[in-house]
């Protein structure tokens, strides 16, 4: 049985391929038929377990919903944009291509317009106009998101922050940095390092992601264990609201208890409540001494005990505690030709210490290493103090995502669980999927209770997908975990929100969205479930 849906006529020029998303359990292809109408074929999702809870289209919770009745971009609109942003209104299909597809190459939109404002005023005028014209907008930073939240679903106008890359100010006494939302994270890191500070967050995508995108997705990363989340380190935001009004909450104060903390609404809202245009963020001092230890454990239980020992003996100098399993190491060796610095072990840990005194830190680290070696919690390991070696060890953890892309098709799950349960999920999935999956790997920020569960197959396999979902979400829900620890909901996971949040909470989110964006033009089809209205 199939569901047919007739969409309104669209120009011959553009063609749609919605279905590339891995969570799709069906083939969804939109093809042009001779009479120039688009017909979307849907086939039945095999497992309709929680269809009642999953929104407008129970058969396909992660598929795109039908296009909402936004206006379409006209020549008049283009003239307005070209006058407002001369040379920065992109309509060339070749240039638009990369902005229409996500980093994982799993979701593709068909936007015809990419706008590159340089200032907050520019963003304000764009949104005011779009709001009046009822044109949907997709804000886009570095386009490194993993849940399809950063690219258009249909023909939403792409609002890019790539030219909003100015640093406004840096106070080297308080460590507060104020900059535009389009600053690339790695560039900010370099800027700060010259001044003896660092960014409070660090992630594999640092070479491309924008700080505005990081904030609007409340990115976690490798340093969260030590410096906390963006909800603590972001001190102020400048946000342009759906109607073009500029909300200037760009305070640079460490403490300010005057009224409701509005910035918390926008942090993690994934561009659906407002477009972040500037950020003020508290930055820590650059540590004088950084050490990285790469250890091998023979069981997850030992890994957890090593973590406890680590917390106790390294204490305040611990700045990262990450893990990867043997399957990840195999992929790194196979696809990226990286070498395992130690003997083969079932589990690997990356521990980073950061402090202000090299001798003090090394002493603590060596005592800790001696302890875990003699007690056999750790079977092998190596330490690095030099920058080049540290980078090499970190790349073993940071490049797993890249190695996975070479395996064919990756099904990504970013789960928060009680720390002891983290690897149980990986082992359970292996048992559950049997030979259906090529690889089931687990890695991630074990120190934060965050698992990155990745499953691969040579190509999209809908039977495999049906076996994975909603099993993985139900498993997570059973242990009161989060179905998206740090990646957000975006397009792909919006309808699964009920696995981790009660309906009253989701309903309130809907009210807030309706209040701040009554026409729903900001990043539609994302974050909130389809049944929100």
């Amino acid at each position, binding site marked *: 049985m199939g569901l047919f849906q007739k969409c309104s006529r669209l120009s011959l020029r553009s063609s749609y391929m919605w279905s590339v998303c891995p969570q799709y359990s069906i083939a969804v292809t939109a093809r042009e038929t001779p009479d120039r109408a688009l017909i979307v074929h849907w086939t039945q999702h095999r497992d309709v377990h929680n269809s009642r809870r999953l929104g407008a289209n129970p058969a396909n919770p992660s598929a795109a919903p039908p296009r909402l009745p936004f206006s379409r971009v006209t020549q008049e609109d283009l003239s307005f944009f070209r006058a407002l942003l001369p040379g920065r209104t992109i309509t060339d299909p070749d240039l638009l291509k990369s902005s229409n597809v996500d980093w994982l190459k799993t979701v593709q939109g068909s936007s015809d317009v990419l706008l590159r404002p340089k200032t907050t005023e520019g963003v304000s005028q764009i949104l005011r106009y779009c709001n009046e014209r009822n044109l949907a907008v997709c804000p886009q930073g570095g386009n490194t998101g993993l849940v399809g939240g950063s690219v258009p679903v249909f023909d939403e106008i792409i609002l890019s922050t790539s030219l909003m890359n100015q640093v406004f100010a840096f106070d080297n006494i308080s460590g507060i940095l104020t900059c535009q939302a389009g600053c690339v994270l790695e560039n900010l890191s370099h800027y700060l390092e010259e001044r003896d500070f660092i960014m409070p967050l660090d992630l594999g995508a640092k070479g491309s992601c924008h700080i505005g995108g990081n904030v609007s997705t409340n990115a976690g990363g490798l340093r969260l264990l030590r410096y906390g989340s963006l909800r603590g380190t972001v001190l102020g935001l400048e946000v342009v609201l759906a109607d073009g009004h500029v909300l200037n909450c760009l305070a640079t104060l460490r403490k300010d208890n005057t009224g409701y903390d509005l910035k918390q609404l926008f942090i993690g809202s994934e561009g659906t409540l407002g477009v972040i245009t500037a950020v003020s963020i508290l930055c820590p001092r650059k540590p004088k001494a950084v050490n990285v230890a790469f250890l091998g454990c023979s069981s997850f239980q030992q890994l957890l005990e090593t973590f406890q020992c680590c917390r106790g003996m390294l204490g305040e100098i611990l700045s990262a505690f990450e893990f990867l399993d043997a399957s990840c190491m195999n992929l790194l060796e196979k696809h990226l030709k990286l070498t395992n610095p130690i003997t083969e072990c079932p589990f690997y840990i990356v521990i980073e210490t950061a402090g202000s005194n090299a001798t003090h830190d090394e002493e603590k680290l060596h005592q800790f290493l001696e302890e875990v070696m003699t007690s056999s919690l750790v079977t092998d390991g190596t330490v690095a103090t*030099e*920058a080049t070696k540290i*980078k090499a060890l970190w790349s073993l953890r940071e490049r797993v995502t890249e190695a996975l892309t070479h395996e064919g098709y990756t099904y990504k799950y970013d789960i928060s669980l009680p720390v002891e349960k983290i690897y149980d999920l990986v082992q359970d999935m292996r048992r559950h999927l049997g030979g259906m999956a090529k690889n089931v790997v687990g890695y991630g920020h074990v120190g934060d209770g965050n698992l990155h569960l990745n499953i691969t197959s040579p190509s999209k396999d809908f039977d495999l997908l049906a076996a994975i979902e909603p099993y993985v979400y139900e498993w997570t829900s059973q242990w009161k975990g989060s179905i998206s620890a740090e990646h957000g909901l975006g397009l792909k996971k919006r309808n699964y929100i009920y696995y981790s949040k009660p309906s009253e909470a989701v309903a309130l989110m809907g009210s807030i969205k309706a209040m701040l964006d009554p026409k729903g033009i900001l990043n539609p089809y994302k974050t909130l479930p389809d049944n929100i209205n």
Partner: protein
Amino acid sequence: MSARVLVGVKRVIDYAVKIRVKPDHTGVVTDGVKHSMNPFCEIAVEEAVKLKEKKLIKEVVAVSCGPQQVQETIRTALAMGADRGIHVEVSGKDYETLGPLQVSKILAALAKKEEASLIILGKQAIDDDCNQTGQMTAALLDWPQGTFASELAFEADKLKVVREIDGGLETIKIKLPAVVTADLRLNTPRYATLPNIMKAKKKKIAMVKPADLGVDVSSRLEVLKVDEPPTRQAGVKVETVEDLVGKLKEAGRV
């Protein structure tokens, strides 16, 4: 083989650090800056340890010249598999002026004292880029030398060395005892694993002074000035060929 190998390791500013010139232009800032073993010395240590693992040589002795801190560098060599270390104490002004000539005199004296039959060094240090120590040491000892080695093999009582030279690869056979300097592609240095790092703590590092070896470390060179390279000027964009010719004429290039 009952051969003993001497490996020289130099403590240098880490490869990834941004170098700053001292305000008085007498040198570069070294205080509080991250130091590590010279990358080519790492390759030298790795090669020596590999030879020992193949049972072609019996003992690997790591040597470094400098102040107290060089012991860290020797420990790294020990953690990679060297058997014992020798720390030649040179500090203060002497250390600042220590160069290839003095170091090669020290290595030559040590080679005789330790009865080494092979010396493996890095081809050059990344701080001074001299590329002289290996060659000078061989000359002082009147030993043959295989420099820029990208391959090393024992053949009967000789050493076959494949050298990386401008024209390509040159293969030579040299008699032992000999001096070899390691080039980039000789091997990939291993990571020092924890069990070895622990073991290395127990290995011996003997302390020796240059005077004990009969070496005079005074320098015949005087550094007059150290400057940063000139900052690269931004290029100029021109619209037409005429503009280009005009600009070239202005600069006196045409």
